[in-house]
């Protein structure tokens, strides 16, 4: 078996031009698959972070965790009188004059935000009760974009804010600027209004509850899940296209292997007459298929790395880069294995049905 596998690999080495072209075809389909999966993974990692501890009260039908919700401050008293132990206000908005310079703004209650949001301070200090007005904490991605370290001044909606600290959450919040709730209210001219209230889960309110005046209760993080799911249609389509390219690569591989087997029919006939069975011949084809697919996989990963570095998805205030994690690489290796098997199956069947010895006699 090993002998035939090495002979198979030698055959593709001899026909290196054909092998390179075929490997590139496989590489293109795998690169498309990798890019699609990498962006899909990155989008869900950034957005889809459901919280078990908190529910969110927002304007019905809005995406309050990002923008579009505005509630009166008096709602907090209604929520607590209805049975919620706390109602923590937050403001979420996207400010800026163009999508390129947009900033995700979060107004936070300085006394309580540490309990509702998991974050790590990368540099400087977190905002605390008593922090000077017009102080901000920047998410690490936003700080990189603005090249702002603690002590620097950044402009948010035309006003200067001093950077107190830089934080990291590993989610879309890394693109946010956090300021005190009262600063956000003043910045937006909202008076005492807020975007959402966070209330502890497991109390009187449940996700899906509706309150009078067009107010809904959802799980904290649900907006992010919904937003990520909004892109599912696009990713499903890209997935279909990547699958199509994979099918095309498998068909092309089948064609190549049939061609190589035909070119080497005399050698294979001799080997068959020497006692090498059908399994060994299948191993010969599988080795060729695997060799080409492996080369295609490596080239596809290299191409995806280059494309991943060169591109990013920039929506208002958030930049998502392709996440070529080991899971994504493993999934694409599985796809390469499927292409290998699919590409070798038909030639192996054809070869097993062919009487090579008779063919050898006819040829001679």
């Amino acid at each position, binding site marked *: 078996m090993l002998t035939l596998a090495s002979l198979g690999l030698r055959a593709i080495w001899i026909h290196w031009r054909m092998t390179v072209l075929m490997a590139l*075809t496989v590489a293109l389909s795998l690169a498309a698959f990798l890019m699609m999966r990498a962006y899909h993974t990155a989008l869900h990692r950034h957005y889809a972070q459901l919280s078990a501890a908190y529910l969110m009260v927002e304007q019905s*039908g809005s995406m309050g965790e990002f923008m579009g919700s505005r509630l009166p401050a008096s709602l907090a008293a209604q929520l607590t009188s209805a049975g919620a132990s706390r109602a923590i206000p937050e403001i979420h908005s996207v400010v800026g004059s163009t999508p390129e310079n947009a900033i995700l703004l979060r107004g936070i209650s300085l006394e309580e935000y540490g309990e509702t949001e998991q974050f790590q301070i990368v540099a400087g200090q977190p905002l605390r009760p008593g922090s000077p007005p017009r102080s901000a904490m920047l998410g690490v991605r936003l700080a990189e974009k603005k090249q702002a370290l603690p002590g620097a001044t950044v402009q948010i909606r035309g006003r200067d804010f001093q950077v107190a600290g830089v934080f990291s959450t590993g989610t879309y919040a890394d693109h946010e600027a956090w300021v005190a709730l009262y600063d956000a209210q003043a910045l937006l001219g909202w008076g005492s209004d807020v975007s959402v209230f966070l209330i502890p889960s497991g109390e009187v309110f449940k996700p899906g509850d509706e309150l009078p005046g067009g107010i809904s209760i959802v799980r904290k993080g649900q907006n992010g899940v919904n937003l990520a799911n909004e892109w599912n249609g*696009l990713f499903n389509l890209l997935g279909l296209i990547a699958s199509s390219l994979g099918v095309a690569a498998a068909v*092309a591989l089948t*064609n190549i292997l049939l061609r190589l087997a035909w070119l080497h029919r005399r050698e294979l006939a001799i080997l068959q007459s020497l006692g090498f069975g059908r399994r060994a011949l299948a191993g010969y084809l599988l080795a060729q298929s695997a060799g080409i697919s492996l080369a295609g996989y490596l080239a596809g990963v290299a191409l995806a790395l280059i494309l991943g570095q060169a591109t990013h998805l*920039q929506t*208002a205030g958030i930049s998502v880069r392709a996440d070529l994690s080991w899971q994504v690489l493993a999934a694409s290796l599985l796809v390469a294995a499927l292409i290998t098997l699919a590409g070798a199956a038909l030639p192996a069947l054809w070869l097993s049905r062919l009487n090579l010895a008779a063919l050898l006699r006819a040829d001679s």
Partner: protein
Amino acid sequence: MKTLLLYAWKDIRHDWARTLLSITGLAVLVFSYHLLGAMSASFSNFARDPGVNRNLIVIEADLIDPSEAVLEPDALAAARAYIPAQVARVSPHIFRQVRAGERIVQLRAAPLSDWEPLYRMQLLQGGWPEQPHEIACAETAARANGWTLGSRVRIYGSDFSISAIFRAQGSLFAALWMPLERAQTLYGASGRIQAMYVQAAESADIEQLRASLQANPAIASRYTVFYEDSYTLRNNQIIKDVDLLGGIAKVLALLAITFGAYNATSLSLVERAREIGCLRALGFSNTVTRLLLLTRSLLQGLLAYSLGLVLALVYIAASAGGQVSVYGVPLIFSVSPAQALSGLLWVAALAAAGAWISSRRLVGASVADLLRE
């Protein structure tokens, strides 16, 4: 020519199994190329401005999401003071992104009397909303969501029935529309006006009007006055990266077609060394032999292209083209004649190039060598 076609066709039919394999591989690539082309065109349409017109938009400065903007009554009154000398109409506008079922859709509201003259909305089916529970739907949103006249849509806890399907310029009009007063009733205290559309009078200089509005004390400090097309273009920049990714994917598919067409052609030719040797021995010239191979490749490419195109059209029709939406705006896919033609030219050119390059060795070889293969 007829003889060439006949020979090529017979050859394709003779080796039908391999031909089928080659055609299948190439057709799948053509299918992918057309889907990506349709997606890319759809993004381009999305980003296209609604055309130069005489409309201005006044909206709060430094806010990306228009649904968070608030337009105060004094700004509205300031703009109305320009009527009739410089301004024909001032239309207060409510904008929301709402969840209708599982999808996010745009909801817009403006006075019903402005819909046709200012927003250029053209009624296609039904009648403009008259009853409190009636709303209008853009044809793109209707197609994407499978809505027809009479379909029920739940918005902000209330049920509405679609009474009109209309067409309007620009993808931002792919929305549900309701009369302004109905939206204000629906949203109650939170039913604030987000922006106003100002239509310049026929005799007015729109540039002067924009400058004058921007300098107006009731507007200058808090709002920005945009030309409608500039504002739409600015907002649509949010999808330019997605468009770029679609473009990259299209290039990948095109490269795959290049390799696929070349491989399919060269493989089928190399295996025909002996047959080509026979033809040469019978007196066929190199040129005629190459033309025969070229014709065969073109026929094969044409068959694959037709199959791929049909598959793409069937898929687009079956999915109603509305599976993808961006920020509540459904993207409608279609294969334009220009795209279909460019795809055909690509496949034909690549198949011909593949045949020509891979036949170089065959026509250069001696008859004896070819017959030995």
